[in-house]
């Protein structure tokens, strides 16, 4: 197809869908990128934490109090605590090992399996869905396509997370500690930074973001034990394209993958999977560190 002819076929609706897909992907990729950028841990269990966020929110809404907003907060914090516990108990002892990268990978992969089976044990394998909050459960027509207000809310929420996190990293004292430690852990330690505690705090924050992403996505898709596996591949593609450890890279990568997933299927059946992979290969060949580099970039 002539590229010139493609653009008139891309409607406003397709762009909104792409932004929506990208926003959800950003919410999971940013935590993954943050943890890697500061701790150097490639957290395979990040998708599992995203899934737990959805399940925790579901459980709060259905079993505790029928308040979706509270469920999101509780879900995200609970996942943050789970993540921090994983870091303290199982990852912290590995930092000093010679082959710590591989050990960390295996440990976090172990948590993928453990979480998967735990979810099946607690909630079963059947798919669940979480009701949307009433205030946002109405449809709007944009570019001839219908969208729920909730879907648009998630786009805004992702943008707010991006801005908030950027300001936090760039403008706060704690942010400067995070940036400093990610640059040189030993120097930060010698200057009095409590590195183990900072690592745990960052792992909490990354896990919190995964939980927040899962809780926010819960009303838009079915929740099942494979939810984490479905998103972790996309998240890895995004952080490779954007640059491991880069916030703006995670944002740009997520929006790129989201747009590809929205637009490409109209032209090639399997293109929504193939094109992001192709982009990742090109980035790895030409700019292995990703489009953006380093924490805070």
């Amino acid at each position, binding site marked *: 197809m002539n590229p010139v002819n493609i653009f008139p076929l891309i409607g406003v*609706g397709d762009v909104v869908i792409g932004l*929506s897909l990208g926003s959800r992907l950003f919410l999971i990729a940013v935590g993954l990128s943050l943890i890697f950028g500061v701790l150097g841990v490639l957290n395979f269990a990040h998708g599992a934490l995203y899934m737990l966020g959805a399940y925790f929110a579901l459980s709060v809404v259905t079993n505790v109090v029928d308040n979706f907003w509270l469920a999101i907060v509780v879900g995200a914090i609970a996942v943050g605590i789970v993540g921090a516990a994983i870091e303290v108990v199982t990852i912290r002892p590995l930092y000093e090992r010679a082959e710590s990268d591989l050990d960390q990978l295996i440990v976090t992969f172990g948590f993928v399996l453990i979480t998967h089976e735990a979810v099946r044990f607690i909630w079963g394998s059947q798919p669940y869905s979480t009701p949307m909050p009433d205030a946002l459960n109405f449809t709007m027509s944009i570019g001839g396509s219908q969208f729920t207000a909730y879907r648009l809310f998630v786009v805004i929420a992702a943008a707010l997370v991006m801005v908030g996190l950027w300001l936090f990293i760039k403008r706060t004292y704690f942010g400067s500690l995070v940036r400093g430690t990610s640059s040189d852990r030993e120097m930060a330690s010698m200057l009095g930074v409590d590195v183990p505690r900072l690592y745990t705090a960052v792992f909490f924050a990354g896990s919190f973001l995964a939980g927040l992403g899962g809780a926010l996505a819960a009303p838009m898709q079915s929740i099942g034990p494979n939810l984490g596996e479905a998103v972790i591949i996309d998240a890895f593609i995004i952080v490779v394209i954007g640059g491991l450890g880069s916030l703006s890279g995670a944002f740009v990568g997520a929006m790129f993958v989201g747009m590809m*997933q929205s637009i490409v299927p109209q032209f090639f059946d399997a293109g929504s999977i193939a094109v992001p992979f192709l982009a990742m290969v090109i980035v790895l060949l030409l700019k292995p560190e990703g489009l953006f580099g380093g924490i805070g970039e």
Partner: protein
Amino acid sequence: MWLTVVDKNITRDADGIGSSTSGTGYDRRTILKTATAGAGLTSIAGCLGGGSGGSGSVTLGAMNILSGFASLYGEEAERGYDLAVEEINNNGGIDGNDVEVIVRDTEADSGTATQQMTSLIEEDGVDGLMGLDSSGVAQNIAPQIKQSQMPLMITHAATPYVTSPEGESEDSVGNDYVFRCSNTVAHDMYGAAQVASELDATDWATIGPDYAFGYDTWAYFQAFAEGMGVDANFTTEQYPPLATSDYSPYISSILDAEPDAVITPLWGSDLTTFLGQAEDSGWFDQIDHTLFSVGMGTDLPSDGSPLPEGEWASTRYDPFVPDTEENNTFLETYMEEYDTLPTYNAEGAYRAVYLYKKAIEEGGSTNAGDLVDQFSGMQHTGPVGEYEFTETNQASVASIWGEVTYSDEYESNVLEPVERYEAAPADVRGALEGSDLPPGL
């Protein structure tokens, strides 16, 4: 545990050697099993200082999806196996022997399914295999089943190519050892075309999973619609990958094409995700009719977005049809045990165990060759009704479609009204004559 396994292997080896169909008296499987038995005996001699096991038992191996997007299907199948095993063992077993079912997870992956199949045959020494939920897996496993010379009773996977004899078409992999007691895509689409002929809809589209099952469903639907003279145009098709988390781009493409009706074979949690997003996009306001070809498989026990009332869904078994004593008893027992209506996957699994019981008792043997002989052309009655195995080893079951209606009594969707389309092999073949698609029955 060791004693049971070894004892079982010896018993079956005796059958295998005595009545092998290979002509030489030994086949690969017999030798393997003999070796396993030998190894087992050696272990026992070393560990226990000799001794022999207790009474014999029948062991069946099941392969279903127990994890991932369609794990619900495997769990439902397990319920069916468990119920059948409990009933059979409480009523004298199979020829006086207890039956045991070992269920393994295929993870909807052909490589994993192959490993599980090999392990069940060579390590667990099963007498027969059953299960399989994915068409793609079934298609890859069927040739290996032939090599292993072990009977397989498929209870769910619906690709017509596994009961289409090798050589009938490029993808045909049917052989003497592969049987299926559940419907095929051909059955389902034969009924779907009949439903389509009665609906006020001309422009049709599809959205299905991006593998053989999605493409086959659309190909067979079109072929049957054309073969049966249905006034239909086929406008657009969308094939999202399995485990897609957001169907919006695909939904948007279908809505842009403005079809009157859509047929979708989405299944498992994919269907649940799709339903919620379709509803949010105004799908059910804009599309007059949606036909869910696998809908009732997951809808019954699901807490997720249910199928909307008034749409159409097919099932391979309906808990209320036929109104026979056998079906009513099964429904009652199942509901007592699990407190939910039985899905077709549970019924298929339940029936497969009884098919093995019948074959073993009538043939007086658990030897693979004897089981295959018994299954060939077997007539059987189960909750699903009466049926027989055609010359391609496919059960002559009906195609069942109905309108989705919520039942307060069962707190679940049911099909009401529901229609059984008796998909007689001759009728199905006749309707497909103008196409190059194999009927698979």
